[in-house]
């Protein structure tokens, strides 16, 4: 019982937010591209580029804003490349996404060696980090200090960004267009939507968020750049976006579940439970939650899917043929 109270304490709140924020930001990138019907597996690589250029620019300029700006620019440039290759030249997203991930891994390693003559990690004496919000009133007590103070900028902004993305997706015309493209491309095309432009915009916006996620990783969550510091977080974001069915709010909750189970798992280690088992816990929980969510989801959407399939079978070829002609015109 004593060990349980050692594990489940107020400090879990902060730890959960801290651990999930990098994934939450990447999840927004994944949600936006998923709503456009693209499984953007290049997010991992975009994050890594964002982390590198953000950290370096902030350090060189001495201002974190330049760092975030550089991360966003890096994110947009890389995702523009992905977008052009995928959308314009019809390369499968997995091919170009995977290529970008490998380029990011090797490219940042190469840049580290060329620019700073180091390998592995870039540690500097006075790293420039994102601002940390401290409330002097809360700092007087360790409990309130842990709960309300000491959050990094994006740990506070992330939930707001989630709401913002939700609003854009579900309450604006642009969001409606994006979702309709993701749901049924030929139908969207026949309704007069410029599919290429909508998808490209989604990929670029996804790059912005992935870049920010990278900036948070190297300047907020830590204060260094390390090779492969994303360590699969981009893929976790894809899973979270899927878990939420493309809804940023559900995806955010999914990230929190993962963050919470991971922070509990970390604390479980000190109780003497074998580390190998404990390290498995977050993934087990994620798989369990994901499965239950999938079962619920498939029950709900069965009817809709059958209806859609039927329409597709009846009208599919005809619509697609027309749409292709139209698509080439744009």
């Amino acid at each position, binding site marked *: 019982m004593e060990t349980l109270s050692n594990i489940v304490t107020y400090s879990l709140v902060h730890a959960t937010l801290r651990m999930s924020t990098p994934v939450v930001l990447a999840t927004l990138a994944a949600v936006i591209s998923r709503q456009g019907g693209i499984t953007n597996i290049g997010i991992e690589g975009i994050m890594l580029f964002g982390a590198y250029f953000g950290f370096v620019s902030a350090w060189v300029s001495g201002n974190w804003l330049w760092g975030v700006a550089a991360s966003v620019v890096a994110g947009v440039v890389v995702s523009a490349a992905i977008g052009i290759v995928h959308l314009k030249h019809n390369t499968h997203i997995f091919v170009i996404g995977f290529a970008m991930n490998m380029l990011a891994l090797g490219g940042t390693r190469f840049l580290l060696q060329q620019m700073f003559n180091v390998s592995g990690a870039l540690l500097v004496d006075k790293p420039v980090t994102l601002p940390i919000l401290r409330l002097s009133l809360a700092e007087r007590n360790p409990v309130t200090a*842990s709960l309300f103070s000491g959050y990094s900028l994006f740990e506070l902004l992330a939930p707001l960004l989630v709401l913002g993305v939700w609003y854009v997706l579900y309450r604006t015309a642009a969001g409606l267009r994006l979702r309709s493209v993701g749901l049924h491309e030929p139908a969207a095309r026949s309704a007069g939507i410029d599919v290429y432009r909508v998808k490209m915009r989604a990929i670029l916006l996804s790059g912005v968020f992935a870049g920010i996620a990278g900036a948070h990783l190297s300047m907020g969550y830590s204060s260094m750049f390390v090779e492969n510091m994303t360590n699969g977080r981009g893929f976790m974001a894809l899973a979270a976006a899927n878990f939420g069915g493309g809804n940023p709010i559900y995806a955010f909750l999914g990230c929190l579940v993962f963050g919470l189970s991971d922070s509990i798992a970390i604390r479980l280690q000190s109780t003497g439970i074998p580390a190998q088992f404990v390290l498995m816990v977050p993934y087990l929980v994620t798989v369990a939650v994901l499965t239950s969510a999938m079962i619920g989801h498939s029950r709900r959407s069965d009817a809709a899917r059958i209806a859609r399939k039927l329409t597709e079978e009846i009208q599919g070829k005809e619509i697609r043929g027309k749409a292709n002609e139209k698509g080439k015109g744009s």
Partner: protein
Amino acid sequence: MSRKFLCLTAMLLVAGLVCAGGSWAAEAKKPRFIVTLPGMLGDKSYNDSCKVGIDRAVAEFGVEVKILQAASPADFESNNLSAAEGGYDLVIILSGQQKQAASKVIPEYPDQKFAIIDFSLPDNPKNVYSTLFAANEGSFLAGAAAAMFTTQTQIDGVNAEKIIGWISGIETPLINDFYGGFKQGAAYIDPEVKILQAFAGSFTDPLKGKELALSQYEQGADIVMNVASATGIGILDAAAEQKKFAIGVDLDQDNLKPGYVLTSMLKNVDMAAYLFIKSVVEGTYQGGGRLYLDVAKGGVGLTDFAVFKEFWKDKFPQNIVDRCQELAKEITEGKIKVDEFPGVR
């Protein structure tokens, strides 16, 4: 005319061959070495420590050394295979993580000289020179230092609770040997000290290391021992961020976060790499031999605490340094026997 020309050409050719042969012979004299690492350089710890020894040997003997890094354990076997194939004067294999790959490759190259660091092979093959470190003895000192430090409440950030932390990457016999020594050392100073133990599941994930360290600080630890190669960079980062404390490992890490790294447990992998290269250069290589580097031989130990002392000045508890030196002496003299993890050596 044409005969003269032919003669001249032939002479030139012979002269050219002799020159080429001469320079080729000089090239061949320079011994060539290859080192396979269990990870990437830049961890400011284990792998970099090996590089320090290599650099020293290169500077001193003018030898040629190639380093093969491993991005993941999948590279171990292919790295060792290509190292063994390359016709080098000596292949140095670092870390027990590579034991499996090494025991596959080594028997297939009975004429190739090998040197292995941090593990040994059964029956000591005649073409293998191995080094083992008394990681338990070095860790004993680190554990003792941590146990003494956790009650120094005059230093900001140290709480009254007797809790210390210990974080590593992946559980292996060698890592258990580290932990056993640490635990024994802490208990030797104060049996009431509680140790929080954690594994990141990887030696190359600093962010996980940071998260583990933060969680241990939240659970009341004020000093955390790092036994985690590149993952440990995150531990030191967490210490500096939370204004808490850490103990470095392998290389002298005191300067990475001055004032927050109490000391580092040195495990002089550089010494082993240097000695191996030296043994081949000087012809003292002992196939089938074992080198055991402990506190007495200077293979393991603590730093001099100077960086930490400089930062905290008057608040610095000098008795920790004195006591650690006494303990090191007692280990050397055999008065203290540090248990080793069964089967590690």
